[in-house]
């Protein structure tokens, strides 16, 4: 059974059809990429899955439950975590605190236990820090950076912190929105390794939006292609590379570079 299933999803804003009858699935423990020319509606799709946009028609089923009625925080609690296209770390807060935010939805101590400093609350605080520390080590951020203001980190490190933050929510599915944007070649290779480790060591399925077709072809088990809100192809990387509709969609847009990379 698929981990995530989108059925006939349709979304429109002020007369624009952003997503048109999109049907799509992600198998548990797999790495799936979502590609398509700019403006195809990929981030909007993420926003529908995570509850930030409400589609007019269709359904989003995750782990057997319907997600459409849920608010974004409830979607995260259900097990879907995400990163953003523009890194959105909490500024003026430390790297560690940023990652600790992920554990909020997995813990429960409230104001009264905090004020009274109950032993259970102190244990929970220690656990939150431990989990955050573990996630940071997992993505390879050294602990001399943990107490720095997150916005002062190098760009590549910030991206990794964002991933660590998402992992701290203990997700079953991780949505990565253009994780390779702005990374150097070396950093992209590290990203590939990281995504594989996320899938293998943490049993988390990964769905990523990416423009770097090389990276997409290397890491993905399956690729789906979105163009102008319509799902035009789905298959293995190899199949997508030789799909004429896909090539046409890229050539037709300004993404010639991506088309050539195919």
């Amino acid at each position, binding site marked *: 059974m698929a981990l995530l299933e989108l059925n006939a999803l349709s979304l429109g804003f002020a007369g624009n059809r952003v997503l048109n009858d999109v049907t799509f699935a992600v198998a548990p423990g797999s790495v799936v990429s979502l590609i398509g020319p700019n403006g195809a509606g990929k981030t909007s799709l993420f926003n529908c899955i*995570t509850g*930030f946009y409400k589609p007019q028609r269709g359904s989003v089923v995750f782990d057997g439950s319907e997600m459409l009625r849920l*608010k*974004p*925080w*409830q979607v*995260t*609690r259900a097990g879907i*975590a*995400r990163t*953003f296209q523009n890194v*959105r*770390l*909490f*500024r*003026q*807060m*430390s790297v*560690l*605190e940023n990652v*600790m*935010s*992920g554990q*909020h*939805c*997995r*813990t429960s*101590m*409230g*104001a009264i236990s*905090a*004020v009274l*400093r109950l032993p259970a*609350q102190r244990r*929970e*605080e*220690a656990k*939150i*820090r431990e989990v955050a520390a573990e996630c940071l080590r997992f993505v390879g951020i050294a602990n001399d950076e*943990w*107490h*720095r*203001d997150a916005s002062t980190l190098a760009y590549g490190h910030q991206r990794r912190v964002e991933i660590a*933050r*998402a992992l701290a*929510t203990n997700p079953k599915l991780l949505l990565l929105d253009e994780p390779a944007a702005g990374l150097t070649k070396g950093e992209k290779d590290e990203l590939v390794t990281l995504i594989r480790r996320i899938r293998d060591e943490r049993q988390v399925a990964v769905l990523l939006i990416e423009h770097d077709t090389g990276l997409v072809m290397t890491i993905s088990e399956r690729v789906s292609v979105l163009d102008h809100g319509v799902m035009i192809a789905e298959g293995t990387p190899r199949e997508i590379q030789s799909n004429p509709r896909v090539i046409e969609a890229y050539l037709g847009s300004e993404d010639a570079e991506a088309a050539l990379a195919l």
Partner: protein
Amino acid sequence: MALEPGSPGPQAVEARPSAWGGLTVLLDTPAKRVVAIVAILLVMAVAPQIFGAYITVILTNALLYAILALGLNIVVGYAGLLDLGYAAFFAVGAYSVGILTTEFGWNFWATLPVAVVAAAVAGVVIGGPTLRLRSDYLAIVTLGFGEIVRITARNLQITGAASGISGIDQPWLYGWHIVSQSDFYYVFLALAVVAVLVSVRLANSRLGRAWLYVRHDEDAAEAMGIDRVRVKLAAYVIGAIYGSIGGAFFAVNLTAISPQSFSFQQSTLFLMAVILGGMGKIPGVILGAFVVVLGPEFLRDLGSFRYLVFAVGLLLIMLFRPGGIWPAGGRR
């Protein structure tokens, strides 16, 4: 920023800019900070003996403002909700005590839980509709609620209408009748210490962090599984409780309350205390409260120009030093 023994050591502690700001240069170890705090508390403890009745009253007022400013700091400084009607919660506490003791003969200490519950209810009633509003609207709506509470208190018989409630009995605590200026000074001093402790613990907790996450980037916070409505409501309710307890003790201190004490001007004074000292930082907020209360005393000669000086000060701070007058420090 560890204030009590048993806290995690420097490596594991959070690393937001220290609330001590520029003073971290002087007070660079936790030990030095503890000494500083103890020294301040000692001075505060003997103040009534040294300074006499008039100053004691002013200091008591400053402590009251400190308590209220700490409460408003949770709403504005941590959760980022610009509440322009905070005096409403102050009123809820004061009138709860006033009505229950004078109309129904309750013992003051029994009225405190009622004041707390009433504040929590008020926090939910005011917070509920406003939480989803953008910040400009939220500010005006809270102002509106503040005015509604004040006007209602002014119109209803049970709240004494425009003349308010008087003849409130002052409480007994195990044989100690709390009546004199210095009696109330020590009560407020104790309350202020408790208020600070509670604020510190909240700031360093899961909820305290959640407030900051929501304040810095609401959508990212939601994406991390944080229910921002619940978190903001918690800020309102906790802030309301601070206000209400301050109001309760204010009522027995003065033995009489009237709607004038709960006006928009009052709300702005509380807000000024929070901002002048440095929004979100506990020592700064306390300093701000003292400045707001002591300032007019020093500026007495200026007569009605006093508040103009404050208003201009607030404007200058917003334009040039939005972090408040507390010395800004670097990171640890």
